C-alpha cells in the first residue's frame, strides 16, 4: 500500500492529512468529470491551496483531542481508499481506447502526489513501486504508440486523436516518474530524448530537402516505368559518391598543393619544357591534355616531393597516397553497404511459382505509371502476360522444340564470344599500333586518335549487335536485360584490360627509357655547372640555378597514364553525348517532322522513336566509374571532370529521355536489378583496384616528377612517416605488425573466420529452405483439408483404400515405393496449379495422404500414369469442392 501506516508518529499526521486530501480529491474528481479536458496544471494550485490551510487548522485544533475518533475515521478512509484503489490501478492498464473521461477522473491521485512532492519529500513515497512501474509501463506503451502510429491501419482522424491523447498523457505523466534522485535524472533523460527526437526529425527534414532531382526522377518514372527510373536513381547515387571522392581529392590534395605548394614555373616538374613552349597553348595540344594541361595540378607529375608544405606542415605526399587508397576504401565500403541494404529490403524471392496468377492479378500494375502511353503499354503487356500464362497453363510443357531453343542459345553465346574475342584483339592491335605511332611525328588526326575512336566505335556497335543476337534466345525481357548487361560488361571489361596491358607495356618501355634519361639529366646538370664555372673562371661562385624549362626530364610515366585515362574519359563523354544527340534527338526530329511528307508512317514504321537503352547506359556509367577509379590516382583532376560529367548528364539525359524517347514496348519492372548494378560496380571496383595497387606496390615512381619522386617505391612514404614523425615505439610496433610471423596467423585467422561465417550462413540458408518447405507443406495440407472438410474425407479415403479392387492392381510393394512418392512432393506445387484439370487434385491428395500418418495407404497406388481423368479408383470424394475444370 502506498502509506506506511506502521510508522508510530506518522499515523495521526497521516490520517489527518489524508482525510482532507481525499475529500478534495473527490471534489476534484467531480470537477474533472465535468471539465474533462481541462489541463492538470490549472487544477493543482487550487487543490494545494485548499489542502494546506485545512491540514494545519485541523492539526492545531484537534491535536490529542479526539484521537480515537480520527483514527477510526482515518481507518475508514483508508478502507475507502482501498476500495477505490483497484480502479486507480486498473485504469492505466486498460488499453488506450479507454474513455478519457474515466481516466481523467481517477487520475487526481497521481499528479497530486507527484506535484506536491517537490515540496515535501515524504509525499514522494505516496506512489508505491508497483504503481510507478505500472505508470512507467503505460507511458512507455504510449510512447511506443506514438512511434508506431503511422503503421496502424486506422483512419487519419482517429490516428490524430489517439496521437494527441497519447502525447498529452506522456507529457503529463512522464515527469512524475522516477523518484528521489532518479527523478531528476529521469526528467533530464526524458527531455534529452525529446530533444533528440526533435533533432532527428529536423535532420531528416534537412536530409530529404538535400536530395536532388526527386521531381525529375519522378517525372521520368511516371513516363517510363520504374526500370528507366532505376537508371536515374543509380546515376544520382553515383553522383553522391563521386561528390565525396571529389571532396577528398580536392580538399586534401589539390587545394593544398595549389595554395601552399610552389607556384608554377618554380621547378622543372611544374614548368613546360623549352621544346614544347611554342605549341603549349595551341588548342589541339590542350585538347590532347598536353602543353599547359600536362604540367598542371590535374596530373600526378605536377606534385612536388617536399615532405611538408606550407606553414601548417601539411604532409602532401603522404596525403596523396592516403587519398589514393582512401578513395578505394570509401568506394568499397559504400558499395558493399548499399548492396547489403538493398539485399535486406528485397523481400521474398520471386522463384516460387505458387501464386502465378494471384501475383499477376495483384501486383502487376505499376502504381507509379502516370502517363497515358505507358499505361497503354502496360495494359497491353499485362494482357499478354496473362494470355501467356493461360497458354502455359493449358499446355504446361509447350517447349516441344526445346532442342532448337537450346541450339539457338548455344549459337548465340558462341557468336557473342566470337565478337568479344574479336573486339579484344582489335583493341590490342590498335594499342600496339599506337605505340608505333608514338615514335613518329607525321601523324594524321585519325592516326593520333585511332585508339579512342576504335574503342568508342566498339562500344557503339557491339551492344546493338549483341541485342540482335540475343533475340535468338527468346528470354523474358528482364532476364534478357541481365544477359545483355553481362555481355556488354564483358566487352567493356575486355577492352579495358587489353587497354591496360598495352599501357603497362608502354610504362615498362618508359621505365627503361627513364633510366638512361636520369643519367643524362644528372650528366647535363654536372656539365652545366662545369661549364658555368669554366666560363666564369671562378669555381667558388655558386652558379644561378638552371632555368627549370631547360632541365632534361624523364618521361614521367604516371602522368602519361593519367593523360590516357583523362583522354579516354573525355572521349567517352563526347561519344555518349553525341550518340544521344544524333541517335535519339536527330532521329526523333526527323521522324517527327519528315512524317508529314513521307511515303510510310515513320512514327509507327521503320525508324520510329528510340527507346531508352537501360543496359547500355548503366554499363556506360559503371565502366566510366571504373576508369575514374583507376585514373584518379594518376590524375587527381579526373574526379572533378567526372563530377561535372555526372551533373550535366543528369540534366541532359533527363531532357533527352523525356523529349525524344518512347516507353518500352514491353514495360517491365526493375525488380531488385539495382543490386545487380551494384554487383557490377563492385566487380569493376575490384578490377580497377588491381592495377592501381599493383603499380603502387611494385613499380618505381619516376625520379623527377610526382609526390613520390626519389623513393624506390611509392609506399615508402608511409615507412618514412613512421620513422620520422611517429614516436619510436610506434615504429617498432609497426615493424612487429609487419612481421610475417604475425601476418600469417592473422591471415589464417581471417580465413578461418570467413570459413566459419560461410558455414554459418549456409546453415541458415538450409534451415531457411527447410522452413520454406515446411510452410509449403503446411499450406498444401491446410488447403486440402479445408477443401475436403465438408466430407468425412479421411474416413472415406481410408475406406476407399480398403476397397477390394485396390488389391487387384499389380502388387506394388509399398515400402520401396515410398521414396519416389515423397521425392516429387514439391512437384505437385511446382507444376503450375491445375496443370491438367484433375491431375493436380490427385497429386495433391496423394501429397496430403502421405504426409498424414493415418493415410499412408494411398501410396500403394502405382505412381506411374496419372492421366488427366480420375482413375477408376477415384471416388466421388476426390477433388470435391473445386468444381470441374473450366474450359
Amino acid at each position, binding site marked *: 500500500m502506498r502509506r506506511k501506516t506502521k510508522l508510530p508518529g506518522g499515523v495521526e499526521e497521516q490520517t489527518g492529512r489524508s482525510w482532507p486530501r481525499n475529500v478534495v480529491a473527490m471534489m476534484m474528481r467531480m470537477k474533472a468529470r465535468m471539465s474533462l479536458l481541462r489541463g492538470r496544471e490549472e487544477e493543482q494550485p487550487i487543490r494545494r491551496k485548499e489542502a494546506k490551510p485545512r491540514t494545519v487548522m485541523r492539526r492545531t485544533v484537534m491535536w490529542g483531542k479526539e484521537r480515537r475518533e480520527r483514527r477510526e475515521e482515518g481507518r475508514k478512509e483508508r478502507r475507502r481508499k482501498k476500495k477505490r484503489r483497484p480502479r486507480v490501478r486498473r485504469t492505466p492498464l486498460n488499453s488506450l481506447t479507454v474513455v478519457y473521461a474515466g481516466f481523467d477522473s481517477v487520475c487526481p491521485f497521481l499528479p497530486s502526489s507527484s506535484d506536491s512532492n*517537490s515540496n515535501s519529500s515524504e509525499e514522494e513515497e505516496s506512489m508505491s513501486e508497483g504503481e510507478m512501474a505500472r505508470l512507467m509501463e503505460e507511458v512507455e506503451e504510449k510512447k511506443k504508440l*506514438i512511434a508506431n*502510429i*503511422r*503503421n496502424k*491501419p486506422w483512419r*487519419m*482522424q482517429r*490516428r*490524430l486523436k489517439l496521437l*494527441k491523447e497519447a502525447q498529452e498523457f506522456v507529457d503529463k505523466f512522464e*515527469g512524475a516518474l522516477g523518484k528521489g534522485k532518479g527523478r*531528476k535524472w529521469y*526528467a533530464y533523460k526524458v*527531455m534529452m530524448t525529446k*530533444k533528440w527526437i526533435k533533432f532527428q526529425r529536423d535532420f531528416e*527534414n534537412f536530409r*530529404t*530537402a538535400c536530395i536532388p532531382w526527386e521531381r525529375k526522377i*519522378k517525372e521520368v518514372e*511516371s513516363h517510363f516505368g*520504374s526500370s528507366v527510373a532505376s537508371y536515374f536513381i543509380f546515376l544520382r547515387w553515383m553522383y553522391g559518391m563521386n561528390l565525396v571522392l571529389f571532396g577528398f581529392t580536392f580538399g586534401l590534395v589539390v587545394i593544398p598543393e595549389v595554395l601552399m605548394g610552389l607556384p608554377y614555373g618554380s621547378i622543372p616538374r611544374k614548368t613546360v619544357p623549352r621544346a614544347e613552349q611554342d605549341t603549349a597553348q595551341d588548342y589541339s595540344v590542350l585538347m590532347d591534355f598536353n602543353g599547359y594541361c600536362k604540367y598542371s595540378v590535374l596530373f600526378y607529375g605536377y606534385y612536388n616531393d617536399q615532405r611538408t608544405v606550407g606553414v601548417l606542415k601539411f604532409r602532401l605526399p603522404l596525403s596523396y597516397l592516403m587519398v589514393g587508397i582512401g578513395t578505394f576504401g570509401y568506394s568499397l565500403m559504400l558499395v558493399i553497404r548499399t548492396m547489403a541494404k538493398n539485399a535486406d*529490403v*528485397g*523481400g*521474398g*524471392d*520471386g522463384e516460387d511459382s*505458387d*501464386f*502465378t*496468377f494471384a*501475383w499477376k*492479378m*495483384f*501486383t*502487376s*500494375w505499376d*502504381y*507509379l*505509371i*502516370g*502517363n*497515358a502511353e505507358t499505361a497503354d503499354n502496360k*495494359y497491353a503487356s*499485362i*494482357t499478354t502476360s*496473362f*494470355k501467356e500464362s493461360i497458354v502455359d497453363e493449358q499446355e504446361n510443357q509447350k517447349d516441344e522444340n526445346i532442342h532448337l531453343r537450346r541450339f539457338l542459345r548455344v549459337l548465340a553465346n558462341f557468336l557473342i564470344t566470337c565478337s568479344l574475342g574479336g573486339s579484344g584483339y582489335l583493341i590490342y592491335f590498335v594499342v600496339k599500333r599506337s605505340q608505333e605511332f608514338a615514335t613518329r611525328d607525321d601523324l594524321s588526326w585519325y592516326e593520333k586518335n585511332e585508339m579512342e575512336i576504335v574503342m568508342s566505335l566498339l562500344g557503339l556497335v557491339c551492344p546493338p549487335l549483341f541485342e540482335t543476337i540475343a533475340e535468338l534466345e527468346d528470354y523474358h525481357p528482364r532476364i534478357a536485360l541481365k544477359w545483355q548487361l553481362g555481355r556488354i560488361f564483358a566487352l567493356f571489361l575486355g577492352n579495358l584490360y587489353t587497354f591496360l596491358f598495352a599501357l603497362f607495356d608502354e610504362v615498362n618501355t618508359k621505365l627503361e627509357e627513364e633510366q638512361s634519361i636520369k643519367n643524362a639529366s644528372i650528366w647535363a646538370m654536372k656539365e652545366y655547372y662545369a661549364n658555368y664555372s669554366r666560363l666564369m673562371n671562378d669555381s667558388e661562385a655558386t652558379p644561378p640555378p638552371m632555368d627549370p624549362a631547360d632541365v632534361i626530364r624523364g618521361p614521367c610515366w604516371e602522368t602519361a597514364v593519367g593523360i590516357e585515362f583523362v583522354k579516354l574519359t573525355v572521349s567517352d563523354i563526347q561519344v555518349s553525348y553525341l550518340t544521344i544527340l544524333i541517335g535519339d534527338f536527330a532521329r526523333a526530329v526527323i521522324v517527327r517532322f519528315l512524317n508529314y511528307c513521307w511515303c510510310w508512317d515513320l512514327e509507327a514504321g521503320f525508324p520510329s522513336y528510340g527507346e531508352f537503352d537501360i543496359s547500355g547506359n548503366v554499363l556506360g556509367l559503371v565502366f566510366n566509374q571504373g576508369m575514374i577509379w583507376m585514373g584518379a590516382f594518376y590524375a587527381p583532376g579526373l574526379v572533378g571532370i567526372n563530377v561535372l560529367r555526372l551533373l550535366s548528364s543528369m540534366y541532359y539525359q533527363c531532357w533527352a529521355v523525356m523529349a525524344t524517347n518512347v516507353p518500352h514496348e514491353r514495360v517491365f*519492372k526493375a525488380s*531488385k536489378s539495382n543490386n545487380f548494378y551494384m554487383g557490377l560496380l563492385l566487380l569493376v571496383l575490384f578490377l580497377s583496384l588491381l592495377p592501381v595497387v599493383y603499380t603502387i606496390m611494385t613499380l618505381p615512381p619516376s625520379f623527377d616528377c610526382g609526390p613520390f619522386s626519389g623513393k624506390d617505391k611509392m609506399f615508402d612514404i608511409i615507412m618514412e612517416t613512421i620513422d620520422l614523425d611517429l614516436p619510436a615505439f610506434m615504429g617498432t610496433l609497426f615493424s612487429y605488425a609487419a612481421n610475417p610471423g604475425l601476418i600469417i596467423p592473422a591471415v589464417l585467422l581471417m580465413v578461418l573466420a570467413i570459413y566459419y561465417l560461410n558455414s554459418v550462413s549456409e546453415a541458415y540458408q538450409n534451415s531457411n529452405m527447410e522452413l520454406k518447405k515446411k510452410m509449403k507443406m503446411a*499450406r498444401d495440407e*491446410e*488447403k486440402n483439408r*479445408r477443401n475436403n*472438410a465438408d466430407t468425412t474425407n479421411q474416413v472415406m479415403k481410408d475406406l476407399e483404400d480398403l476397397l477390394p479392387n485396390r488389391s487387384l492392381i499389380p502388387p506394388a510393394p509399398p515400402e520401396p515405393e515410398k521414396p519416389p512418392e515423397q521425392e516429387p512432393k514439391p512437384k505437385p506445387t511446382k507444376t503450375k*496449379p*491445375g496443370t491438367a484439370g484433375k491431375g493436380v487434385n490427385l497429386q495433391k491428395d496423394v501429397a496430403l495422404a502421405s504426409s498424414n500418418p493415418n493415410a499412408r495407404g494411398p501410396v500403394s497406388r502405382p505412381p506411374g500414369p496419372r492421366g488427366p481423368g480420375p482413375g477408376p479408383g477415384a471416388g466421388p470424394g476426390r477433388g470435391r469442392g473445386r*468444381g470441374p475444370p473450366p*474450359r
Partner: protein
Amino acid sequence: MILHRCVIVSILCKFRLHLKGFVIMFSAIKPSIQSICFSHAVFLSLQDCTFFTRKEILRLHGRYHELAPHLVPMDYTNEPDCKIPLALIVNMPELKENPFRNRIVESFSEDGMGNLSFNEFVDMFSVLSEMAPRELKAIYAFKIYDFNVDNYLCKEDLEKTLNKLTKEELTPEEVELVCEKTIEEADLDGDHKLSFADFENMISRAPDFLSTFHIRI
C-alpha cells in the same frame, strides 16, 4: 525545482522551435504558396502519423490546394473542415492512369464515397509512399481490391480487377479461368473467396508488391 526548470526550458524550446518552424516554412516555400499556413503542432502530428517530412507535407498541401482552389483555404492553421470530392482527386496526374483510382480514393475516405479531407489525402499518399511497411500496404491493397466492400475478395471482385487490368481484352472464359486459378492458388480456407489472411499470405511473398504498390508524390 528541477522539474519546473525543465518545464520552463522545454516551453522555451518549444517557443523557439515555433519561431524556427515558421522561419523555415517561409523561407522554404515558393512565394506562390507562401500563404499556406500550418501550426507547428499540426506539422508535428502529421509527421508522426505519416511517413512524410515537412517539405513533403507542404508539397502535398500545395497539390491538395491545386485540386480545388475554391474549396480549400490557404490558411490551415485552424484546420478547417473541407473535403474534395472524388471526381477531382482522380484527375491528379499520379492517379489519372491508374485503373483502380476510384477504389483507391474511396478506400481512403472516411465516408466511403471518395470525399477526402486533407488529412485523409495525406494518409493516402503516406500509405502509398516508399517508406510504408508491407503489412500496412497489404491492408490497404486488400481494401482497394475489395470492390464490393464485404471484406472478402470474391470472384466478382477478381473479375472486376482483371477487367480493369486488361481493359477487358480477355474473353469471358479466360477471365473465368484466371479468377478460378487465383482463388485456387491463394485460398487457404476453402471458402472460395479470399479473406484478408489469404491475401496477406499471398502478397507477403510477392516480390514486386512493394515496388509496384507505390506512388511517388
